[in-house]
């Protein structure tokens, strides 16, 4: 059978497979894609795959791994999320962002949730990312989490869960935009049977949110993107966002603070800056407040923000909200601040400060995933079932010495999607990072997101900094919704073509040159 020759090793019993419900049986939503792919042999797939790679290396879509510029491998097969699934996911993400905003506002304000014992005070004071300097710095639109990336996984039963929250400087949205561009160019035929939400609205949304966060009284704010520079792994993204928003991409040395006002140096002298979308970590942001050896920061920036002449987005000190230990309290925070039940579950997690949990985890370390609470990019994660005995022994000692520094989670077999590796399609584990923008009035979730793939067989760490790849992520439009209002760009062009005849209900008229062929 063709199916077995193109898709191998699919075994939905180990993990939830997004495409196949049983070997050889595609889920209805993927049926068209599987049908199309049946017509491709390994050489065809290799050709398409290389084509995608070429598009990326020509456009310079790269990330830096260990100092080397590499393309971020884009897989051929998209990951599809239905309108109903997406409705649940985006509502859950919105809820989570609202709760984290409320938490940050509280923690850098009165600290009511600490007084009420929802979150232990020690958790805040011991968090390496809690930032006293942030107290009293509130953006005009009260949105501290302008951009968030809430990482989602799908467990063995098909249930979406939150894996971690990223509310400092989540990256990856540029790949969402570039993946879609490359896929429509190289593999447009796949889109013809689906109505896929476009993803190109993101930059305009982000710019609007940033402008809304501008200091009071600034009628036409100047927004900039602040990058640590060309050697940052996400530099490509900084460039893309600045370009798509039509704002300047600045480095620390381009900015100067004079009398608590931030300016950028231009060929025509200094020009005021009102909103800084910064892609530099707190600790490097201002050598006067944080690390004095920072050469990528801007001296005096924090004081200017405190004087309300400039907005820093995302806000200072957000790291306390994506501390992995705090993550275990987020369901409580949702109940406390919003009075709602959490729409998305966490992954079952253990606080190691609790003696009983610590004991359980130390005893059965080979069953758990252990993460440092302030890590990002997959750094320092130990996956128990895949670790050797020496690693586990070392980890036990570390955990005994610093239980506050880590959390443990049940090892979840992330869902799989067939992925092109070694000239065939084989299941690989994926996660999903949707991006949300809070403009102060509304939390908008980009319909799509970055599906990251762990390319080695069985691997569960998907971060690009760990050598992962990605997939174009399609959120399907709700077919029951009313037609799009005129002028709105709701569907991709390929999809629009495929629905046009049935909408018109009329036979196409032959063009001038088509007469002799008979337009059947």
């Amino acid at each position, binding site marked *: 059978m063709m199916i077995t020759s193109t898709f191998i090793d699919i075994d939905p019993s180990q993990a939830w497979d997004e495409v196949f419900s049983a070997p050889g049986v595609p889920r209805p939503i993927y049926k068209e894609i599987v049908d199309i792919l049946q017509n491709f042999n390994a050489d065809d797939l290799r050709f398409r795959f290389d084509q995608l790679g070429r598009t990326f290396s020509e*456009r310079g879509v790269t990330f830096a791994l260990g100092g080397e510029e590499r393309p971020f491998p884009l897989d051929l097969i998209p990951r599809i999320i239905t309108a109903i699934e997406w409705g649940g996911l985006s509502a859950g993400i919105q809820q989570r962002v609202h709760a984290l905003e409320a938490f940050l506002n509280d923690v850098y304000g009165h600290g009511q949730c600490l007084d009420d014992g929802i979150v232990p005070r020690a958790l805040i004071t011991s968090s390496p990312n809690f930032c006293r300097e942030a107290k009293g710095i509130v953006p005009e639109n009260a949105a501290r989490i302008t951009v968030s990336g809430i990482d989602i996984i799908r467990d063995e039963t098909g249930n979406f869960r939150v894996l971690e929250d990223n509310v400092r400087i989540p990256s990856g949205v540029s790949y969402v935009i570039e993946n879609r561009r490359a896929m429509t160019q190289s593999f447009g035929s796949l889109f013809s049977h689906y109505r896929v939400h476009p993803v190109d609205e993101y930059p305009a949304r982000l710019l609007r949110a940033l402008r809304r966060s501008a200091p009071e009284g600034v009628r036409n704010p100047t927004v900039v993107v602040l990058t640590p520079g060309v050697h940052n792994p996400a530099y490509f993204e900084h460039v893309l966002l*600045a370009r798509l928003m039509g704002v300047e*991409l600045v480095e620390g040395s*381009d900015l100067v603070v004079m009398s608590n006002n931030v300016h950028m*140096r231009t*060929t*025509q002298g200094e020009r005021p800056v009102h909103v800084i979308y910064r892609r530099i970590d707190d600790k490097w942001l201002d050598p006067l407040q944080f690390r004095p050896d920072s050469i990528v920061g801007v001296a005096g920036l924090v004081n200017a923000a405190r004087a309300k002449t400039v907005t820093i987005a995302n806000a200072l000190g957000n790291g306390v909200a994506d501390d992995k230990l705090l993550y275990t309290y987020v369901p409580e925070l949702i109940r406390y601040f919003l009075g709602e039940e959490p729409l998305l579950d966490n992954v079952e997690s253990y606080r190691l400060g609790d003696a009983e949990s610590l004991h359980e985890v130390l005893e059965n370390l080979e069953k758990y995933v252990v993460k440092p609470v302030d890590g990002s990019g997959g750094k320092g994660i130990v996956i128990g079932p895949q670790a050797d005995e020496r690693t586990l022994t070392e980890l036990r000692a570390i955990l005994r010495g610093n239980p506050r520094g880590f959390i443990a989670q049940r090892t979840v077999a992330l869902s799989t999607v067939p992925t092109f590796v070694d000239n065939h399609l084989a299941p690989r584990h994926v996660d999903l990072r949707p991006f949300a923008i809070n403009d102060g009035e509304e939390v908008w979730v980009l319909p799509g997101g970055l599906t990251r793939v762990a390319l080695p067989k069985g691997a569960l760490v998907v971060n690009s900094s760990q050598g992962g790849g990605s997939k174009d992520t399609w959120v399907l439009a709700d077919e029951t919704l009313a037609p799009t209002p005129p002028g709105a760009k709701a569907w991709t062009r390929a999809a629009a073509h495929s629905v046009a005849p049935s909408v018109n209900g009329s036979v196409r008229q032959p063009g001038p040159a088509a007469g002799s062929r008979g337009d059947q």
Partner: protein
Amino acid sequence: MSRGMLSRLAELLYWTGRYVERADDTSRIVDAYIHRIAEDPFGDLNAACHSLFAILGMEVDASIPINQETVLTQLVYDQLNPSAITGAVLAAHENARRAREVISSEMWVCLNSTRNDLGLQRREAERVGPASYLKFVRDRSALFAGLTDATISHDETWWFLVLGRSLERIDMTARLLESRLLAAEHSPDWLTLLRAAGAMESYLRQSTGGSDPEAIAAFLILDRSFPRSAYHSLTVADRCLEDLTRAGARSDVVNQARRTIRMAQTRLEYSDPRSLLSELPELLELLEQTSAAANDQITSYYFRQIAAVVWEAEGAT
């Protein structure tokens, strides 16, 4: 009125323009020399190669023998020296990469795919001879120049790119002519020089001077319409600076670069083509000084303004 662009970006664009032009010009010069050497098997190869290194401003001890292999490794394929062709392409790429948000995607893709193809082109050149590599670099430079003119607004971005290109061109034309003065017997003849400047056909079409050295020197320095003549490059540079000045709000500081360029332009304007050869050393010296001085003045005027930092008390508003 323009709001001005980031000084850092302006500098990156200026150098992108310079390096692309340098890669182009250097490949023309090296090509001309290699042809010359191939056509004249009895000439002093070592001396010819030494004069080539001297034109490109690279110090080589006269006692060290240089052959074509040295020329290729050090002037063509060296990746670290921005005066070598490959080094200049890589430097242009690196500058453009950091100014990627202000140039067009097509310009960026042009430089990026050029960089990506360098290795392939070198292997090809090792098979069929260096001319294919040199042609590749010239073609890509021409493509970049075309995209520069056709795919971005002719505003500050373009002005700085073209300003860099023009100043590099003035410098390279002066260096090329200087080779006749430095070591006339080892350098290419005048017609080869014309070819090295990409000026052969334009010269033949408009000139009646044949291979008269005076006429050729006049064409490369004084011609009003040939885009690689020193005069024309000065005119273009002056126009860029004029547009930049007009767009700017800074009337407080005199733009020294413009003064430097215009003085050189005026000097050329009133040169007598008939006595050009006798004035050549002085004129070439002037051109090189003009290029260097203008570069410094543009740098301090547009790229490196020193802002006075005023310290405020903590928490002050």
